[in-house]
């Protein structure tokens, strides 16, 4: 029973870990650079999910906009992790943008985005 509680009661954290590992796996194991980039994005998104999870509170806490009758801190969600994640999303998007720009450069130069094919081209050019 305890283990079930441990798994189901904290499912959001489990999802975050699973997502993160999927992203990690894609970054390490995939041969295609776009897939690596998607993996990187999943990895970053997992962290956002984690931050959003820590902001939530049990017992019907609501969004942090002051309402009549709600004057205790525990009745509101913690807004800070959300704000932090807004910044992190900006960082994420710009990283993605720079990475895509570099993939375009790579594609123009080599005509492919498969890692092994690019490596083969480089090796061939070295021998010439």
């Amino acid at each position, binding site marked *: 029973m305890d283990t079930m509680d441990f798994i189901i009661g904290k499912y959001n954290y489990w999802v975050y870990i699973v997502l993160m590992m999927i992203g990690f796996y894609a*970054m390490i194991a995939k041969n295609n650079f776009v897939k690596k980039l998607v993996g990187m994005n999943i990895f970053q998104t997992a962290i956002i999910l984690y931050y959003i999870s820590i902001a939530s509170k049990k017992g019907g806490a609501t969004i942090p906009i002051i309402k009549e009758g709600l004057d205790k801190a525990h009745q509101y969600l913690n807004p800070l*992790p959300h704000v*932090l994640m807004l*910044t*992190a999303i900006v960082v994420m998007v710009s990283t993605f943008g720079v*990475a895509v720009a*570099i993939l375009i450069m*790579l594609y123009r130069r080599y005509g492919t985005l498969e890692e092994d094919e690019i490596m083969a081209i480089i090796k061939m050019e070295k021998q010439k």
Partner: protein
Amino acid sequence: MKEQAPILIVAIPLLMAFLNIPFGLFKRTLSYPITVITTFLCVYFSYLIADTVVNNGNISYRLGGWEPPWGIEYAIDHLNAYMLIIVSIVSFIVAIYSKNSIEKEIAKEKTVYFYTIYLLLVTGLLGIVVTGDLFNLFVFLEIASLAGYALVAIGEDRAPLATFNYIVMGTIGACFYLLGVGYLYIVTGSLNITDLTKLLPPLYHSKVVLVAFAFFVVGVAIKIALFPLHTWLPDAYTHAPSTVSAFVAATMTKVGAYAMIRVMFTVFEPSFTLEALPTTEILGWVASAAMMFGCIMALAQDDLKRMLAYILVAEVGYIVMGVSVGNKEGFIGSVLHILNDSFMMVSLFLVAGAIMYKEGHRNIKKFANLHKKMPVTMGCFVIAAISMVGVPPTAGFFSKWYLILGAINAQKWFFVAFLLLSSLMVAVAFFKIIQNTFFHPSESHHKHEEPIRDEVPSGMLLPIFVMSVSLLLIGFLSGQIIDLLIQHAVPKGF
């Protein structure tokens, strides 16, 4: 003005980075003076800040007037002031150097954007140093890294591929750092470094804190390219434009090392870092491996910039080693080595850039008689090289001396042996180049075709010369530097 210096040192390069685009599009030649003036202002402000810190004690600057635990605080102590001076001086010197080198290596229409990104990188690096807020540090870390990716990518043919690997690795590092911040936030509810120092001690037994610490160390270790997480560095720094390699090699890893020291000894107490986990033990061995690996790989390279990049991997090992032995001498050695290594790396990479500028290659085997062609440049190279080896009275000797003292005091004899051995290998690596250049055997056969003296333009020569002379100066003044700044930065637990 003086009270506002902590914010101005970040705000001015950020603002100028954006103003640079309209000015540059109006007249392309304006970008260079804008960058030089901006970085000079950074030097001036860092001097003001250091002056205040030395005379009046630590600075706590409140952004928007909010009280520290809630608002973002810019907290500056001796270590920050010291790092600010290093970063701003290096950025100023490299900015002066950049003009000719960039004209040769980068397409004309890209120079405006190059300087914009350069200023953004300066902003990021100064921001990391100046901030007293863990999340703010992450944001600046990413500003610096993103600017770094873009700058590396405009380099040679192979640069984009190297950059992509750099992006993937760098993002993993930054994400681990962010997770560390998140874990600390769960248990303490605070992001302010000074606040965390007070809140954390009762929670040291908590597993969450241990995990946070592990994430911090691994995340920053990727950013500073600590062996075995260094794989992105040699490729990226070899194929970047010479100016960029010089700046990034000298500052990025050093600022990362600063972040590591900050997390290990300010956010967490030294007693926790040294005793709760075998972190320092592991870091010490990893650093030894980095020194050995970096030097061995450096010996095998023909490309000067690639060799320097591998030596940088070894130098990161030195810095981490000094921190890991956990005593005063080791810490002083580490912090002093941050300064020395960043100045040595700048001089060496600038020389590599100068050789690229004149010769169009940087293959060590083709260096024969280069000293007749470029006597001043090669003279400066020799000074920087012997400083890297650690010959007194150059700067490199003093930091290595303290590092070895630290290892002896901690009775880690293996580390002493590794330090000496890797210094020896650095010596071999550099003497190989010096021999190839000065004592090349073919000299006697071709005496009739004496090479003509052909130095790089003075805009490139002067920065190289200044950096090399400063290596001697730092060597002579290292006692004063330690007295004035570094000894105040040593954490209390040591």
